[in-house]
């Protein structure tokens, strides 16, 4: 119980203290929720899409400091970008942008990647837009807590 917690970078603490794009989008075009309360983290992403561009992104997170920071960073990285680019967001990119995460917190950045994909997938489904399943490997396995790539580093 008395575990270390001074492991976060300045960047993580900044996003944790001042989360960007936090909240809900009423009438969102897509919503993705990943993780589960049993494991201690849930991320929910709301997206607004216009002409294939993510005009707005918001998130809600139940989870630790790195989960909050990862979702905040992910929204910042995809807001204003085309959907195709958002789908290319990797947990690795989120981790790097945060200046690194402790090894046992890497799954938080994986959740952020999954949440973005889940929201986009929801948008595609709602609008009957055909999609390539291989693009959503991550979101489709979102019920699993860990991601193979999450073990790296």
């Amino acid at each position, binding site marked *: *119980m*008395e*575990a*270390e*917690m001074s492991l976060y970078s300045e960047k993580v*603490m900044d996003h*944790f*203290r001042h*989360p960007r794009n*936090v*909240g*809900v989008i009423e009438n969102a075009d897509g919503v993705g*929720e990943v993780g589960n*309360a*049993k*494991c*201690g*983290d*849930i*991320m*929910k992403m709301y997206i607004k899409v216009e002409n294939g561009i993510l005009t707005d992104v918001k*998130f*809600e*997170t*139940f*989870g*630790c*400091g790195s*989960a*909050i920071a990862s979702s905040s960073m992910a929204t910042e990285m995809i807001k204003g970008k085309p959907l195709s680019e958002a789908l290319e967001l990797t947990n690795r990119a989120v981790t790097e942008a945060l200046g690194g995460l402790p090894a*046992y*917190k890497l799954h938080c950045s994986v959740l952020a990647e999954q949440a973005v994909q889940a929201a986009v997938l929801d948008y595609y489904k709602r609008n009957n837009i055909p999609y390539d399943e291989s693009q959503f490997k991550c979101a489709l396995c979102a019920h699993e*807590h860990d991601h193979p790539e999450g073990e790296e580093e």
Partner: protein
Amino acid sequence: MFVYADHAATTRMLPIAVQAYTKTADLIFGNPSSLHTVGQRAQELLTSCREEVAAILGASPREIYFTSGGSESDNQALLSAAYAGAKKGKKKIVSTAIEHHAVLHTLKKLEKEGFEIVLLPVGESGIVSADDARRAIDRDTALVSVMLANNEIGTIQPVREIAEICKACGVPLHTDAVQAVGHIPVNVNELGCDYLALSAHKFGGPKGTGVLYARTGAPLSPLIEGGAQERNKRAGTEDLPSIAGMVAALKASVADMDASCAHLRKLQRKLIEGIEARISHCSLNGDRANRLPGNVSFCFEGVEGEALLLYLDDEGICASSGSACTSGSLDPSHVLLAIGRVHDVAHGSLRLTLGAENTEEEVDYLLEKIPYVVQKVRSFSPVWRDLQEGKRKFIL
């Protein structure tokens, strides 16, 4: 404002303990094993320290062994009694589900070596039942280990009653009294234990030092081999400055116990009632009355504990949590699970442990900031939203 409310993790050394520590380091630097005058002065101090600890615990000085702290004392007591029992063909060990890892992990190791480990449940109150203990303990039991007070939820265990059961079956009893000593009265004869572990840094003494009490006749084998220190039971030149610091802290804590206990009970009550009045869907962990005077432990629904701690830290408040994220594992605290908290709720725990130097103003500050921070974390928690919208059922 800055509020240190994590005294169960560790305490700041009492000035009198710092004084004893530095004075010893400076002036009584000899090796107690040396025959010359400088060594003998150290030996005299060591002897008087041992006598003082013994007097406070109601033990004889020959039953007091200085160690590196609670973990070592727990390990040595358990391994000594277990191996001695095994020699007589007894391979069952009875303990509780809420022990500290210093005990649980040692029991895991013994289990791998072929011992049968029975962990008694505690139920919602966080207190083991003597009846359950009675059913589990028999003549084939090598050892019973029951902590005196729990480190997470502060609940006080019926060690004395369990000692009677042990006595009737001829089974040795170890008690991890790390969280109790210096805070509530502890006397080895009143408790009836055969072994007891204590740790200096939980009552204003230095870190890395503690005591193992082992009753005369109770089996004791060394964990550390080498010199003949501690009557051949613990090799290594004694850390006399720490021992002197520990004894000074112990004497001061025991002398002030009544006053600080009354003070802490008042603060504890104010804090518990204040949190309950200000925060919805929360629940106190463990029995309300039968707990250490400084312990306040809650679960808040829809909240994750690590985030709570970090935001509290930004407000100058030091506390702790049993969430998975703070334990570095995927599971929340085994103690919270043992009292029946489901995972979802156990992740949202907060432990505040007050010390004698905490003030009523500080509790007011806690009561201002904790609800604010819980509200903040809930404001962007999808779990909290689902609870609000009826998509998920409230547990607390």
